[in-house]
Structure formats: structure tokens, C-alpha cells
């Protein structure tokens, strides 16, 4: 029997349903990561729909730990690349190396050949590297020398951006931001969550290596066990494809995207890719919440993550102190 919870204003609310697949991932991730349920949901949506995810948030809020935990929960391979100004495309994609014993070139595959790639601080790399990654994200294959190699399936890029330190960064242009299905803005944990983080850190012991030892980190606590694998993920992806999208829901999505193109405070509205992302992400969210059809709640929950990185405010609107969030709230009001 589900227990009744309360909204922040005291309104009683019945508990939410969640699909077994999502619950399993969430449970396993919650062993190492405290809170961040929405981020886990967004990572799952990206995995289930084959989209890519851009996480925006300050350092130190467990982005890497979370992504690695999700990967481990579904037995996915995971790589992390710290983007810097001197990074080269071949550092990500790979290159051909001359084998001096055989006198022939052999392919050295880069870290992009993985299921989950965490591109940390993507805006610190040069535009050349950014485009190489974004091209691979789009085509899901890369060329090394004269040979084209398919990337493993599933392939998901989770890129991060630090919104605070902008010096020496290369801001992703709108056309490239559009390639990310979702952009999710991370926030600091609540006090309760942060207390729990500290409490868990006190339980971490020493990790012995030979005669020496070093303190364990949260990464050591992830563990190797997993209840799901790639086949389960594939099955879940198939189920997402079966989620029904009604004509009314499609109208809501298309209307919202169209409204971004006519709002006077928006210099650049959303491309049709936004409507596609909204519908696909809503299907995945419906699946995660145990439904076989998408509803307006999915649209309203995902609008921020699918719309805001695809619009640009006018100078007048910026001068008046307006924010994309204000405008999105207006657009959602105008939907009716």
C-alpha cells in the first residue's frame, strides 16, 4: 500500500509509479549517489531514446560518479575525457600508429569507443575537437585513417559545462547545442542530502595496496555487481518505442515549439529537432513512470531541458533582466 505524500504547500499527493527497469537503476545508483533523482531520470531518458545529454552545473556535485554508477548498473562500458584547450580530435577518436615490428599501421581506438562517454567541461576544448565529437554523436561512427568504424551500441555522450568559469572557454554554438537532446541544469543537494553525503563518506575505510593504504572514495563504493545488462536496456528501448503518443499530445509539443519562434523576446526559436526531442523524451519518461502513453505532465516536466538550450534571447530582453525560464513559463501558459 502506497503512502500518501505532501506537496510543498501541503496539498496531499499520491505516490508516483515507476517502471521496474528504472527502479532497479535508481536503487543501484542511490547506493553511491545521494539524491539527484531527476538527473538519473534524464540519463535514463537519454539512454532509452539514444539522445545525448548536456549537464550544466558547478563542479563537485557527483556528475562523474552518477554517470559511472548508471553505467555500472546496466553493465555499460564507461570512459571519461577531461576536455582542455590542447586536446586534439585524435585524442578522442583515435589514430593510426606505425607498428615497428610489422612495419604496418594499426588502429588505436580512442576513448569514444564506449557505451557511456563523459565529456567533462566540453566548452574548454577547441571548436575543432567539439565538432569532431558532435559529428560522432550525430553519425555514430568515426573515421580513423581511411577506415570508418561504427561506435558501440548503445552510445551516449554526457557532456558537462561549468556555467561559472567562462574565461578561456569556447561556448558551444546554437547549432551544436541543438545536437543535444536534453540540457539539464544541476543544482546543489539539499541540506539533508548533503548531510547524508558527509555521513556516507565517514563510512569509507582504507583501501590497502601492498603494505600501503589510501582512503576509499565514493568511486570505490560503486561495486561491480549489476542486476541489468545491455539486453535489458535494449528491451526497455523497444518498450519505449511502443509508448503511445496521442494527437493532442503532439499538438501540444508542436505548438510549444512554434510559440518559441514567434515570441518577441526570443531572437532564435527552436528547430523542429526540439519537437522531436520533446516527443521522444516524453515517451521515455512515460515508460519510466510506468505508463504506455505520454501525457502533458511529461511535456511540462521536460520542456525546460528540451527547449531552453535551443533559444536565444534578444538584447532588449536581456537588458530588461528577463531569463529564458520566465519566457518558457509564459509560453507554457499560452499553450492553452
Amino acid at each position, binding site marked *: 500500500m502506497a503512502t500518501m505524500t505532501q*506537496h*510543498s*504547500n501541503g*496539498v*496531499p*499527493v*499520491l*505516490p*508516483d509509479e515507476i517502471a521496474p527497469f528504472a527502479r532497479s537503476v535508481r536503487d543501484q545508483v542511490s547506493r553511491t549517489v545521494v539524491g539527484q533523482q531527476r538527473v538519473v531520470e534524464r540519463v535514463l531518458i537519454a539512454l532509452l531514446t539514444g539522445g545525448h545529454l548536456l549537464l550544466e552545473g558547478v563542479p563537485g556535485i557527483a556528475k562523474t560518479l552518477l554517470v559511472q554508477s548508471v553505467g555500472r548498473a546496466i553493465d555499460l562500458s564507461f570512459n571519461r575525457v577531461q576536455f582542455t584547450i590542447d586536446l586534439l580530435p585524435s585524442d578522442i577518436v583515435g589514430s593510426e600508429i606505425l607498428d615497428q615490428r610489422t612495419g604496418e599501421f594499426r588502429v588505436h581506438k580512442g576513448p569514444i569507443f564506449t557505451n557511456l562517454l563523459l565529456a567533462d567541461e566540453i566548452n574548454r576544448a577547441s571548436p575543432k575537437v567539439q565538432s569532431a565529437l558532435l559529428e560522432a554523436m550525430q553519425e555514430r561512427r568515426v573515421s580513423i585513417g581511411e577506415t570508418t568504424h561504427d561506435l558501440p551500441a548503445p552510445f551516449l555522450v554526457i557532456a558537462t559545462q561549468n556555467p561559472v568559469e567562462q574565461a578561456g572557454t569556447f561556448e558551444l554554438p546554437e547549432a551544436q547545442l541543438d545536437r543535444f537532446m536534453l540540457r539539464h541544469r544541476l543544482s546543489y543537494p539539499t541540506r539533508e542530502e548533503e548531510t547524508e553525503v558527509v555521513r556516507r563518506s565517514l563510512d569509507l575505510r582504507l583501501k590497502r595496496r601492498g603494505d600501503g593504504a589510501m582512503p576509499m572514495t565514493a568511486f570505490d563504493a560503486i561495486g561491480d555487481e549489476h542486476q541489468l545488462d545491455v539486453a535489458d536496456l535494449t528491451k526497455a528501448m523497444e518498450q519505449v518505442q511502443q509508448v*503511445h503518443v*496521442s*494527437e*493532442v*499530445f503532439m*499538438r*501540444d509539443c508542436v*505548438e510549444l515549439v512554434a510559440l518559441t519562434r514567434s515570441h518577441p523576446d526570443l531572437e532564435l526559436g527552436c528547430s523542429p529537432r526540439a519537437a522531436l526531442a520533446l516527443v521522444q523524451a516524453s515517451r521515455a519518461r512515460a515508460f519510466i513512470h510506468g505508463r*504506455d*502513453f*505520454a*501525457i*502533458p*505532465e511529461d511535456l*511540462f*516536466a521536460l*520542456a*525546460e531541458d528540451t527547449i531552453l538550450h535551443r533559444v536565444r534571447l534578444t538584447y532588449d530582453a536581456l537588458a530588461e533582466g528577463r531569463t529564458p525560464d520566465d519566457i518558457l*513559463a509564459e509560453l*507554457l501558459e499560452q*499553450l*492553452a
Partner: protein
Amino acid sequence: MSSVLVLVMATFATVLGAPQDVQDEGAADRGISGRVTFTSSHEDLDARPDQDLSSPLLVRVRRTGGEGDMIRYEATYIGSVEGTFDVADFLVRRGGGPIEDVPPLVVSIASNLPVGHGTDVFEAPVGIEPIGGGNRRLLIAAIALWVAFPFVRLGVRLLRRTEEPEEAVEAPAPTLADQLRPLVEGAASGTLSVDERARLELLLFRAWRERLELSDADQASVLSVLRRHPESSPLVTALEGWLHAPAPSVDEAEIGALLEPYRSLETVSASSSEGGVP
């Protein structure tokens, strides 16, 4: 430009080796060279050195031979003004002294320009009068306008600010009840389009949001609350079953019955937060 033209023509005329450019002795058109030949006992005849662009006639002289004690000269001239002139007036002796034995060398310069055009070869044709009195004045006027523009604009803004704002007469916004009524009736009769059904659903969400005083909450969480709230969830889940489920779990009669209270909704306006949902 015109001076260059005249100099080129004068230089051309001194060549004198091109008979096709030279008209008959005693007559020539303006700007076209003519020539006269004469003899003199003086060996040092030359053209006057003080000729310039304002001279009616430009003359050049060269020796071409001798006839006994007499020297043969050829004078080439270009007329810039219509009229009759004596080429002898344009001759001097290099060593100074009077010219005694050169007869009058009268030449006639004719003009082919239209009547009334004037006689100046270098006069600009009518219609190329500089606009606004010349480039300099135009430039000064443009700079003055450019400098004055911000002041004028500032003045206009200040004037507008001081004007009393007119009272805007706005049509009253349609109330939530006004917007809902035709949609509820359409739902009962089964005549709603996709767009109208979508609007009906979102307007009902708005009504419940105001009823539960959730207007300040973010809209994503509001819908989540409405789906699970004991009072609103029957309507919200019925709407989902009707509008979004793959096989509608609610028929139109049930929806009509659920929506019946909203047909006579009177008190909630589109922007008010007062109650009104049954």
C-alpha cells in the same frame, strides 16, 4: 580634367604630321587644330609664351624651310572660342623687337555647339549642376544631421515622457469560464477538434491549479500534483484516458458528465486566483 584635355590637344597639334586632324587654312572648328603658312624675314619667330587656357586661341609655330631671304613658317592653332582672330597677334620674336613683315593671318573659329549654349569649350553641360551646391556642402550637411540626430531623438523622448499617458482602453480578458464553456459544450456533443481538446485539457489544469492555490509553483510539478491529488485526479486521469490513452478508457458520455459542472463555471477569470472549480 579639362586642362589636361586641352594640353593633350595642344601637344597633339604640335606634332603637325597628321593632316587628317588639320582643317583648311583660315577656318577651323572649336577644339580642332588648323594651320596657316606664311613667310617672314625674321628668323626668330615663335608663338607667344603667355598663352594659357584662357586664351581664345592656342598657337604653335615652326620653321618649315626658306625661300631666298625669306623664312617659311607654319602656325598651328586651336580655337577655344568662336570668332575671328589674327594669328599674327600670337607671334613674338625670341630676340625681342617688332614684327614688321608678317601680314594679318586671319582665321575663323566656328562652333558646332547648339544655339544658346555659349562659346566656352570648357563650360559644363546643363544638368550636371552639383547637387546641393557641391560635395563640400553636402558633406557638411550630412555631418550636421549626424551630430544633430541623437539630440533630436533625445528631445523627442523627453517630450514623450512629459506627455500624459493616454488611458489604454483594453477589452476585458475572457474569463476562464468564458473560454471553458464552448469547449465543454463541444466535448459533450463530440465536436471538438484536436486543438480544442488540447485547449480544454490545459484550461482545466489551469482551473485546478488556481483552485488548489498552486499558481506560484512551477508548472511541471503542478501537473504532477494534480494527477495525484485526491480531488483533481479523477478528472485529470479521465482526461488522460480520453485524450492520450492508445485505447480510450473513458467514453464521451462519462467525460460529458465529468465536465458538466464546468459548463456553468462563472467566477474564475483567466487571471484571478479565486476559487470557482466545483
